[in-house]
């Protein structure tokens, strides 16, 4: 993956995507604001949500062992996976043991993170995404661009094209007379997926919450595809990040108020399913839970950074972020885009790659993400914390460090500053109001920013000219009533 700044530059040229995103984020921001406004004690709820997650994270070994004990007691099988490879192998072994050729999937960030679909396909097992947006992404051979609505970068005409072109090759084709009305597109997905739901023997899900004191797993969704996968197949495999643990069933009283209002801007999402191990005669009779580390223990070790693990994947931070709104999700180079992705990815994966090094800079630090976060993750502070890490790792030879040293030299002496300013105004006169897209030597800075066109004259030049034009009107030292004087900028020199 290229750096965020390079990928964002390409995404910015995609006007269709920018229009789709601007419409979507504005809509969802308004909905969220309205339903959050209905809750009188929203701030107290946020604090309670953060406390519940912190309690779990600070004592994660304790709560994971409790979760395992309760799951096992209720007939589930618990597996532990250090990394993506191990998790994929565990899932693959279970699917093979059931002799299944395909699995149906509930939208799950954890399985995207470990690239489970790709691993299953390599082993000859089809993994069908059943969430409408994930289906659009999968059929379009595309990548998700938003946590909650992964196909937000596509509009209805594009979706119709994808359905007509691709559905037939993997199952029931789209109806001949398919239009681009959302209701008709949803109907096409219903027909296409129903045959897969009815015949599937194995399902794979994630979990929004895993309750330690009861062993209950919780999946929050809207369409009913989640209920289909969690109910109809004989075998259910849930891949659960270890940070998904909540200490107590009672904590759901807090979380189920915070999550839907923050994510879709609804008082409650249409469907929430909860299951505790195996329920005799109801739903899957073989239940597996894969507890996934994959970098999370590393994040937990950073006392400041660990709060990123509170994230409940609501995507409120994406919808308020001015950077995400323009760059889109793909530029973040991960299944976790937006402000949360900008802190979570470099922590989970380390800052070795171009994209992970650049992500802490994928922000204007405006702070809107912290205001929106239902579990109070201080994303701006963590971005700065991670920038420090990136700069330290680069041993002070980063472009930013170099330009800062140059700036220190220039500001250190007023003659140098004046010379630089005169040079800049010359540039401004030459440009005549056009925008500067890049400046040689300032590559890293101007890659992601347009440089303001330099003024035709500096303040100092303007001041000097004004005094020349009207010697009587221009103030010398301003005489104060107490007899002291303040100086003009020039006299200070």
């Amino acid at each position: 993956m290229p750096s965020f700044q390079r990928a964002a530059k390409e995404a910015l040229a995609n006007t269709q995507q920018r229009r789709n995103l601007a419409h979507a984020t504005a809509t969802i921001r308004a909905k969220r604001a309205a339903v959050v406004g209905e809750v009188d004690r929203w701030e107290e709820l946020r604090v309670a949500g953060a406390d519940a997650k912190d309690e779990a994270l600070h004592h994660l070994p304790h709560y994971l062992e409790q979760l395992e004990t309760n799951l096992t007691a209720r007939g589930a099988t618990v597996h532990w996976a250090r990394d993506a490879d191990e998790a994929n192998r565990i899932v693959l072994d279970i699917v093979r043991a059931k002799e299944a050729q395909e699995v149906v999937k509930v939208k799950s960030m954890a399985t995207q993170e470990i690239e489970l679909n790709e691993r299953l396909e390599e082993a000859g097992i089809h993994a069908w995404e059943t969430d409408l947006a994930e289906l659009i992404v999968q059929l379009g051979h595309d990548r998700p661009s938003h946590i909650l609505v992964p196909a937000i970068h596509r509009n209805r005409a594009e979706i119709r094209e994808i359905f007509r072109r691709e559905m037939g090759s993997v199952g029931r084709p789209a109806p001949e007379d398919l239009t681009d009305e959302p209701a008709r597109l949803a109907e096409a997905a219903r027909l296409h997926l129903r045959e897969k739901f009815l015949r599937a023997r194995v399902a794979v899900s994630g979990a929004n919450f895993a309750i330690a004191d009861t062993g209950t797993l919780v999946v929050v969704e809207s369409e009913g595809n989640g209920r289909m996968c969690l109910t109809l197949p004989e075998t259910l495999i849930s891949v659960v990040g270890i940070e998904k643990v909540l200490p107590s069933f009672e904590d759901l009283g807090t979380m189920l108020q915070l999550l839907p209002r923050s994510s879709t801007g609804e008082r409650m999402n249409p469907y929430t399913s909860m299951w505790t191990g195996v329920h005799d005669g109801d739903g899957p009779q073989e239940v597996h839970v894969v507890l996934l580390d994959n970098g999370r223990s590393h994040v937990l070790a950073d006392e400041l950074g660990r709060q990123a693990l509170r994230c409940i994947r609501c995507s409120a931070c994406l919808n308020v972020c001015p950077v995400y709104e323009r760059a889109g999700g793909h530029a973040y180079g991960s299944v976790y885009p937006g402000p949360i992705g900008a802190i979570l990815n470099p922590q989970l994966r380390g800052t070795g790659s171009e994209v992970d090094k650049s992500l802490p800079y994928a922000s204007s630090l405006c702070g809107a993400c912290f205001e929106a976060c239902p579990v109070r993750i201080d994303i701006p502070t963590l971005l700065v914390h991670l920038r420090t890490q990136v700069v330290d790792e680069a041993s002070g030879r980063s472009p930013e460090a170099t330009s800062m040293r140059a700036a220190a030299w220039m500001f250190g002496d007023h003659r140098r500053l004046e010379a630089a300013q005169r040079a800049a105004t010359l540039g401004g006169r030459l440009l005549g109001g056009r925008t500067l897209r890049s400046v040689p030597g300032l590559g890293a800075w101007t890659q992601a920013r347009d440089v303001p066109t330099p003024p035709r004259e500096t303040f100092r030049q303007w001041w000097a000219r004004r005094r020349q034009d009207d010697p009587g009107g221009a103030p010398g030292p301003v005489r104060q009533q107490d007899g002291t004087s303040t100086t003009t900028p020039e006299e200070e020199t």
Partner: protein
Amino acid sequence: MSAREEILSRLRTATRDVTTPAGSRGEIPRIATVGDSPGATLELFAENVADYRATVQRCSPADVGGVVAAALARAAAHTVLVPTGLDPAWVSSLRDSGIRVLADEGEDGGPLRADELDGIDAVVTAARVGIATTGTIVLDHEPDQGRRALTLVPDQHVCVVRADQVVHDVPDAVALLDPSRPLTWISGPSATSDIELDRVEGVHGPRTLDVVLVEP
């Protein structure tokens, strides 16, 4: 070292700075709104359920059968599934209105297979809890509600909620529920907002949800 041991050991090392014991955060704050009166809570429940484009009908206990039959007729449902524990009075009034009433029993004597469920138009169930502030009904799949698949595959769900089952806010509901049961929370019919954030009712779950609110 097993994956389990290694992960737990990494996590213990990662949290070495934590000095407080587990569970020391104290009582979990119950942040919920309180209704002005039971009547106001019921009004809010009906309003919020309807806001999700489900229909809400309020009636007396004696009228449940008739109201359910009318809801089924509106959606042109000819075959309806009833769980074993559903109130027999309701079931007989459905039979009286000429609807084909089926039990959860397949050709082989076991419960209905998924493809058999797919051929049935509607399902009628009771509920465990209703939540006013969110317009949610919660099923715990006791015999009067049937197993989870019954309220999922047929295209219409008629759900009968008693007024005394309606609580005001989400934490009130969580406190009443038994986590050892499978639980399904339903707020309106199946819906998606995945296409340009236009809300469309009806994807995979029942496309029609009728809530019958029974008041003494």
